[in-house]
């Protein structure tokens, strides 16, 4: 591997302090390979860590193991057929991937989304945010030695997946968000089940806090470890909970509201120190805020259509196919060729559980996108791991990696 060879050469240029670190016996640097298959990397991530004793002097992430060429594949498919592919990038936030992509295409088409569809999108996006944070919390706690958290978090996640199954028929990669709105209205019984979940969730989140925040081992592993200040994070283009943990309240839902996020009353949790504990606290607090948004969206859910009324883009209702020739023609054209999108480019950013998820779509006027690019927050945020863990213990590396929360499907796409 020439990557390793280059890295060996570069090792000589790594500066390290003369004070003894770790055991202090020698200052020899050790290159340690972690991954690509390692439970603590939460996916197929490989790290080459340069250690001095137990202290990490540098890490190099090596990625690309789950690169599946989704951006290239999307160019071969008509616009609506690309939704299931882009959903599979970041496999924990599929609603967000679909939302960013559909938002970009809707911008190009100039489509107006009906209010009910916007609210349904918000409900599902926030449910997905809770689900993603629960997976993060469960697996991170597992890395830090708290086994039982995993089962509690996955219990609530299961309820969310059941709700997804109710509204769309799928538990993961639901393809619920369509260009123009959502696939279908919520079925009878969904609202009651969701309300039950929303009422119970804050108490569950309290339980997590009770389990974790009185645990001395967890606190001493998270507090004051791997601090990175706001300015460095901004230089590294980091967004999302990592930036908010350092005290910058940047959240696209508040700063540039999309999909009627300005209708809801919620707060942006921010940290004060920017250590791993703040990163944990910010995400934990977001569980409550997302629950509040869902509650408001469910109570204020407007009546009306769930998808835009543009027959050139949106499939006609099924019942019309039996009576209307025009609907049949539209249906046939949409399914076989797809719809054409006027030439142009759009960049549509949204706030995913990990930060700014932006989708860039270029249209050349045909029925297939000429370029789809996802600015995935995991990919960009992963770069902040090295400055965070520099000069801290290798055990903190595991904790930091858990708190950075990269999803490798999103990193490699």
């Amino acid at each position, binding site marked *: 591997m020439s990557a390793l060879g280059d890295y060996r050469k570069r090792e000589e240029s790594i500066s390290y302090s003369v004070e003894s670190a770790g055991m202090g016996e020698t200052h020899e640097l050790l290159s340690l390979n972690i991954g690509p298959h390692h439970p603590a990397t939460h996916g197929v991530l490989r790290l080459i860590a340069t250690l001095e004793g137990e202290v990490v002097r540098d890490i190099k992430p090596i990625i690309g193991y789950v690169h599946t060429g989704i951006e290239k594949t999307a160019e071969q498919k008509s616009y609506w057929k690309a939704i299931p592919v882009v959903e599979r990038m970041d496999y924990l936030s599929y609603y967000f991937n679909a939302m960013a992509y559909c938002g970009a295409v809707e*911008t190009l088409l100039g489509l107006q989304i009906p209010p009910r569809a916007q609210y349904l999108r918000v409900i599902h996006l926030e449910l997905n945010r809770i689900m993603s944070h629960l997976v993060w919390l469960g697996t991170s706690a597992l890395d830090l030695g708290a086994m039982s958290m995993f089962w509690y978090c996955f219990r609530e996640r299961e309820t969310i997946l059941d709700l997804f199954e109710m509204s769309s028929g799928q538990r993961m990669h639901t393809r619920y968000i369509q260009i123009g709105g959502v696939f279908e209205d919520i079925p009878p019984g969904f609202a009651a089940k969701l309300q039950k979940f929303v009422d119970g969730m804050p108490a569950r989140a309290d339980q997590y806090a009770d389990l974790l925040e009185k645990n001395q081992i967890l606190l001493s592993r998270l507090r004051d470890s791997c601090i990175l200040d706001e300015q460095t994070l901004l230089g590294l283009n980091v967004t999302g909970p990592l930036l908010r943990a350092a005290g910058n309240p940047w959240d696209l839902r508040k700063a540039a509201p999309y999909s009627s996020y300005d209708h809801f009353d919620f707060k942006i949790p921010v940290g004060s120190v920017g250590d791993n504990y703040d990163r944990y606290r910010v995400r934990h607090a977001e569980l409550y805020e997302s629950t509040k948004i869902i509650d408001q969206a469910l109570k204020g859910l407007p009546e009306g259509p769930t998808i835009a009324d543009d027959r050139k883009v949106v499939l006609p209702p099924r019942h019309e196919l039996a009576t209307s020739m025009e609907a049949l023609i539209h249906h046939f054209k949409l399914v076989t060729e797809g719809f054409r999108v006027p030439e142009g480019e759009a*960049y549509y950013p949204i706030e995913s559980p990990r930060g700014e998820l932006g989708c860039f779509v270029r249209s050349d006027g045909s029925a297939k996108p000429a370029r789809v*690019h996802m600015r995935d927050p995991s990919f960009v945020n992963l770069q902040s791991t090295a400055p965070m863990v520099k000069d801290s213990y290798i055990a903190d590396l595991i904790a930091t990696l858990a708190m950075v929360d990269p999803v490798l499907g999103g990193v490699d796409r």
Partner: protein
Amino acid sequence: MPDAAGLEVIAEELRGADPSAVLGTTFDRGRAEIQIDPSKNIEVIEQLRERGFNFLASLHGVDYYPQEPRLGVVYELLDMTEVDRISLKARVSIEDPRIASVTSIWPGSDFPERECFDMFGVVFEGHPDLRRILMPEDFEGFPQRRDFPIGGEPILFTYNETDHYGKDR
């Protein structure tokens, strides 16, 4: 986003500093874009940073085949105080796809620039570690270019192993 008039004001200011830096502006469906000379990207970005656009939200490559110059490098800049976005596009030719790296301004553009090099073959001059990032190191070609065929990779099974790389071993 700045509106159409605001975009012209910014473009005029950039032209005032260096008349050849700005090649054109586009305001389309709420997206403000300035086309810039690829050799002047650092100067333009520095000026926009002083105006407040000091966060690089995204950097990506685009292939405009069959138009010339074919490749485009797009910078999506963000002003977090005014909540304003502006896009910069620098077009480079496929024969000499070179542009200055912005890693000195934003260390976080490291991975996005490597990805752009990996997928389109754009060489970012001054990048500290310009290697392939997502594709294997021995991969030939730049897969996101429009003329790169999809499905061109031989898929190896035991029955056809000898037809491909195993043949002359």
